[in-house]
């Protein structure tokens, strides 16, 4: 394990690993949930936390160059006084690094209108598998040649290590309003989400929390969430005042048409912050229900929310497990959380069985395996559910084009046997 402080030191570490015949894996804060940074094949672990400087902020260009170990929230704080912010805001934003966000193509509540990390990364300096340094992308709108920057973002460290990242900053909107809608039925809340999108309204965020998590959060944060609601929606609208007012009126009307009991508009920034604190504390609040949890990340078409959510509860019931749902409803990105006590004998078998069934239900509804956490090790073996052998082979070839020796974070994303002609045999007892 090493803690380099510069691009040159990362390159040196990569070359040193190569000279010992070892692969390497980059690691930021270790908040990833799909095992993308888990060391496999005895790699050199290159930890980026010492590379945590915001190198340059160009206010005119609205671009910041940062090192990979900069924490997501620290970046937005560093540019707030300039009237700018960095849009992707994963729930772990106090702890996760921009480098890790680039690796997983991380999302967050405010990616609904603004887009996930890839829409906000303009250029990356990377150390490739052979220890050479390349700049992918640039500050100009279109580069010559293929979009290597676009390939690299979300490649989970399998194409190299980002050492300098140019991110796009956005001006703080002149008007931001946050609403809390509460429902006596989860179907009504889900139908409201679909109806808001269908009406042509794209909120900057549209989050849903079910009854269990709403109560747990309220007991923890005291944000004024209704403890007796079956589901709440947190919606945020931003932009210019008249458009925001019109959107608020439309969300209010659609919510009430779908059975919302109350629609509360935060009066000021303080109340807005409190409502968001509730949402962002959800994972911490889970400990009030059971000591352990397994968080899933799947996406379904937004028109399928009601039906898939029902299935998620049925699947958890069938395994006699508690599931809570707190998720990015506006883009169909579900986060079913299986809550349990790991000391209970045989519990992991049920947790995995439920997780497996949830993933399959989402794919059957036209969904995908991950919206923002990535594939890593966790979902590698699910890849054939959504891609055929030719699709996987094309992905394997793309990965190999960046790293022909296969030194960068081996064994991640693609299941064994993805390359056509590769022998598909997993040793007995292997971790797959």
């Amino acid at each position: 394990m090493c803690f380099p402080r510069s691009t040159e030191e990362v390159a040196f570490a990569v070359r040193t690993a190569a000279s010992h015949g070892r692969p390497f894996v980059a690691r930021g804060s270790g908040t990833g949930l799909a095992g993308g940074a888990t060391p496999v094949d005895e790699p050199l672990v290159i930890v980026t936390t010492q590379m945590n400087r915001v190198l340059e902020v160009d206010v005119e260009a609205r671009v910041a160059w940062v090192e990979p170990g900069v924490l997501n929230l620290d970046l937005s704080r560093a540019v707030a006084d300039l009237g700018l912010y960095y849009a992707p805001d994963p729930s772990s934003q106090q702890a996760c690094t921009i480098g890790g966000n680039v690796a997983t193509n991380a999302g967050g509540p405010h990616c609904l209108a603004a887009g996930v990390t890839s829409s906000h990364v303009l250029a990356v300096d990377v150390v490739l598998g052979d220890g050479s340094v390349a700049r992918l992308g640039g500050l100009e709108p279109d580069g010559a040649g293929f979009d290597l920057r676009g390939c690299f973002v979300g490649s989970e460290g399998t194409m190299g290590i980002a050492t300098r990242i140019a991110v796009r900053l956005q001006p703080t909107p002149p008007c931001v309003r946050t609403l809390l809608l509460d429902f006596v039925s989860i179907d009504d809340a889900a139908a409201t989400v679909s109806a808001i999108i269908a009406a042509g309204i794209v909120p900057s965020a549209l989050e849903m929390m079910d009854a269990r998590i709403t109560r747990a959060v309220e007991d923890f944060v005291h944000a004024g969430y209704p403890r007796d609601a079956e589901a709440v929606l947190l919606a945020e609208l931003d932009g210019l005042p008249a458009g925001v007012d019109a959107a608020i009126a439309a969300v209010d009307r659609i919510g009430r048409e779908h059975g919302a009991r109350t629609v509360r508009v935060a009066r000021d920034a303080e109340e807005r912050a409190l409502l968001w604190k509730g949402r962002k504390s959800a994972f911490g609040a889970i400990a009030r229900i059971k000591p352990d949890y397994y968080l899933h990340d799947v996406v379904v078409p937004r028109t399928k929310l009601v039906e898939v959510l029902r299935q998620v509860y049925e699947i958890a019931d069938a395994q006699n497990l508690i599931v809570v749902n707190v998720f990015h409803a506006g883009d169909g990105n579900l986060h079913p959380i299986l809550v349990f006590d790991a000391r209970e004998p045989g519990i992991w078998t049920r947790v995995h069985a439920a997780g497996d069934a949830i993933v399959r239900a989402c794919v059957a509804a036209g969904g995908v395996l991950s919206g923002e956490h990535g594939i890593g090790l966790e979902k590698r073996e699910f890849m054939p559910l959504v891609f055929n052998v030719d699709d996987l082979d094309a992905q394997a070839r793309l990965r190999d084009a960046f790293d022909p020796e296969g030194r960068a974070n081996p064994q991640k994303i693609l299941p064994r046997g993805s390359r056509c002609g590769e022998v598909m045999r997993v040793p007995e007892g292997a971790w797959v």
Partner: protein
Amino acid sequence: MGVSALDALARTVAGARAVAIAGGGTQREIGGTPDPGATEVRVPAGIVRYEPADMTVTALAGTPVAMLDAALAEHGQECPLDPRSAEATVGGVLACGLSGSRRLRYGPLRDRVLEVRFITGDGRAVRGGGPTVKNVTGYDIPRLFVGSFGTLGVITRVTLRTQPRAECSQWSHTDATPADLRDRLFRPATLAWDGRRTFVRLEGYDEDVANEQAHAGLVATDAPPSWPGGEHRGRVSVAPPSLGALARRLDDLECTWLAEGGVGTVHVATDSEAALAAARGAAEAENGWLLREAGAPGLDPFGRPPPNLAILARIKDAFDPAGKLNPGRLPFLRRAA
């Protein structure tokens, strides 16, 4: 596109020595002129699936942008694509990386492509990405295809994210420069600058657009700026803060140009090939580059070779090992091989 048509296309590609992919034929010279001896293939037109409530649309690559636009308009939606000719196809716009003039507000085309299906050079049908609006399942092949000029695969169908059409879309003009305007306007759609005036396109809610216009001292107009015309045309890409310096260089040349403020794209046209070559020199002096879009047969399509040529060549080899797709386009790949 039925299974049999797809199979036939795959067989044609697999059996041909060289393949030239044709869409609406509106960008024949962009990125290099295709080999005249190549077998021409076309993908049919058609909307495969449109889910207004999900804001996604899937279309065959041969669908004209005008046809897509009409289908989306019925539900008050759009994809903000505006190629010079509406006969341009969805696949062609994607392959040429034409993000459209409202990129400043709505982002580049590469952020809008959710899924792409294509035939590889060795005749295999492959799918990359997925149909949902958010997806990190596997490698981002859709973005790779935006601006790939048909050299990695014959795009057969694409899924795009749609958006609601703005209630109001209004052009206006002002003597202020884009740099002056950026802090005075919130998310303008277009800041088209010709060196003398800035044409501003604002979209949104009526009242907001009117207030923004008044606040920034803009004069409403019905006439959007015209695209620079000329026999030889190119598209410059520079970092947006370099636009001012680039404009001063271009003003010394016999050419007309229109810059997308805040974006960094500059559309250049001239009747003299030498002037387009000089415009490329100006772009390169500002750390940018000029893509030759039409005319100027003596000019390399891209100019200096792009960085990371070894990776580009390996990607090309991964998708088109025999080098048969659109030979003549992206000539630097051939030189790298």
